[in-house]
């Protein structure tokens, strides 16, 4: 700090310099405080208050909302389902992302074409992609309708089928995104490491397990945290594709928040309580993941 600050100190007076910095940062500060810090405080307050959707704040009632949240008939089911979906989506996306990255790693015209086609779905919104697959999976409009009819199943008909079909949509939409992140990681490995492995007589398979994967650890940590966070907060895909069905088997935690807040129950206090639980869980899970990746390293 001392050296460059001193040089610049001569050019501009320090106090004025700091003031200018604040001036340029003011729009950011206003947005972050008004639309992030204040709502964050408010959601905590709501979680300990009786707060019906239409009537508004009715005063403190802690810890009623948290009790009601945990006792909600779909609370445990939605937590279990969300975790199940998160594990499935994360494993598939990371394996596929890395696989695609290895496949198109070398730069050539053909590979550039492939990369672009893997990446195009990621430009679509999640809602648009879900709507697309809503039609694609329907027993009436789907190009696979004859297959469904002759094999006697529908893509969204049973809990397992609904989970797998939704996961397929997510893999289709996000695989290219994880491929790009994996490509960045692969490019970060110095070439002479592979050279050394080859001259030591390592097979491709050994090189992958002993060299590539360990050196990809920072990328794997980032992609895992991103994918787990994104999947734990899944909403659109299930809201649009399955509406939580069949038999309420595909309700995610965020969907539960939405339901409690705006569909029937209309209790913003309980919804805020679930939101706070999700926030705390997410912070803890991410901290644990980062620690796991770090301790393995040492």
């Amino acid at each position, binding site marked *: *700090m001392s050296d460059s600050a001193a040089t*610049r100190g001569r*050019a*501009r007076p320090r106090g004025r*310099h*700091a*003031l*200018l*910095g*604040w001036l340029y*940062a*003011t*729009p*950011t500060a206003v*947005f972050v405080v008004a*639309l*992030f810090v*204040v*709502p*964050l405080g*408010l*959601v905590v307050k*709501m979680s300990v208050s009786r707060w019906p959707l239409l009537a*508004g704040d009715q005063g403190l009632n802690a810890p009623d909302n948290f009790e009601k949240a945990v006792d909600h008939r779909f609370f445990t089911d939605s937590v279990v389902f969300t975790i199940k979906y998160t594990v499935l989506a994360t494993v598939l996306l990371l394996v596929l992302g890395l696989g695609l990255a290895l*496949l198109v790693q070398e730069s050539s015209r*053909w590979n550039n074409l492939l990369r*672009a086609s*893997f*990446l*195009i*779905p990621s*430009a*679509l*919104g999640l*809602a*648009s992609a879900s*709507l*697309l697959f*809503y*039609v*694609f999976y329907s027993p*009436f*409009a789907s190009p696979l309708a004859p297959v469904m009819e002759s094999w006697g199943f529908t893509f969204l008909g049973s809990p397992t089928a609904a989970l797998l079909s939704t996961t397929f949509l997510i893999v289709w939409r996000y*695989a*290219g995104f994880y491929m*790009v*992140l994996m490509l*960045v*990681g692969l490019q970060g490995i110095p070439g002479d490491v592979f050279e050394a492995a080859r001259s030591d007589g390592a097979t491709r398979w050994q090189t992958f397990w002993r060299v590539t994967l360990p050196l990809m650890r920072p*990328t794997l940590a980032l992609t895992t*945290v991103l994918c787990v966070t994104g999947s734990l907060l899944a909403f659109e895909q299930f809201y*649009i594709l399955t509406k939580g069905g069949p038999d309420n088997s595909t309700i995610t935690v*965020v969907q539960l*928040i*939405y339901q409690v807040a705006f569909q029937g129950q209309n209790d*913003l206090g309980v*919804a805020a309580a679930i939101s706070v639980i*999700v*926030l705390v869980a*997410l912070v803890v899970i991410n901290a644990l993941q980062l620690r796991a990746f770090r301790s393995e390293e040492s």
Partner: protein
Amino acid sequence: MAVVSPSTPAATGGTRPAGDAPAGRTGRRGVNVAGIALRMPYWVFTGALGLIFLAPLVWTAVASVSPQAGTNQVEGWGFGNYETLANYQAGVWRYLFNSAFVSLLTVALTLVISLFGGYAFARFRFPGRNFLFLLTLAILMVPYATLLIPLYVLLNEVGLENSLVGVALVLTMFQLPFSTFLMRISFEAVPRELDEAATVDGCSTWGALWRVLLPAVKPGLITVGLFSFLAAWNDFMAPLILINDTERMTLPLAVSNLRGQVQGVVDYGATEAGVVILALPCIVLFLLLQRHYVRGFMSGALKG
């Protein structure tokens, strides 16, 4: 399709080296042919994989103009499904306008705020600088739904209930972690000497920003603009929670509501048309700005 259609001549070409192997193996040409033969499974496999990713998009576009029972396009090819959409509730033009309004306002706000913010974080030292930067990044840690519920209450209190401006403000806030981070590293990549020379020559910091730095951080701005447009255009949850009025819905919400509205029967054709209209700007922007698109993902990865 490009890979599969020439498969007949390629396949015969692929079997040739096996036939005249002794001659082919020594000759240069033989090695090439054998190489191509070895690559064939790779091309077929990767080509098929590429098709899996493209097929749903192509199918939807084709299906939206092809005849289908239970839609407005029962016989022959045409734009009947798009007509359904044009007459649906407030009409597709209204929803397109709403979506464009929200998206453009979000892009404009995000560009201005992150340009100034990135400049401040990269070039100035002021009390609270690191704290504010970390606070901005912390937005990423907090679930969307956790913030949308109190934001719904807050916007109601300040008279922005049911307002597209309110939606744009919220979407801008969600864009700030990525865009502030990206603009900060864009400014830091520009040599300090450049703007210091300008200020020594009598430019104010304001003048240095507009005349000297702006051209240098243009690629960063394009990436920020692209990502905030895609995020705002495609966002579903914010308008779902913040907008109740049919007149003010954005396009994703309107297309989603299309299902099950007509006497409980889903008009799949109109939904297909809606998906096409939703996807078209995204795909065009992706194709035009692919380099910026990939770079945006990569700068996200470098952060980790």
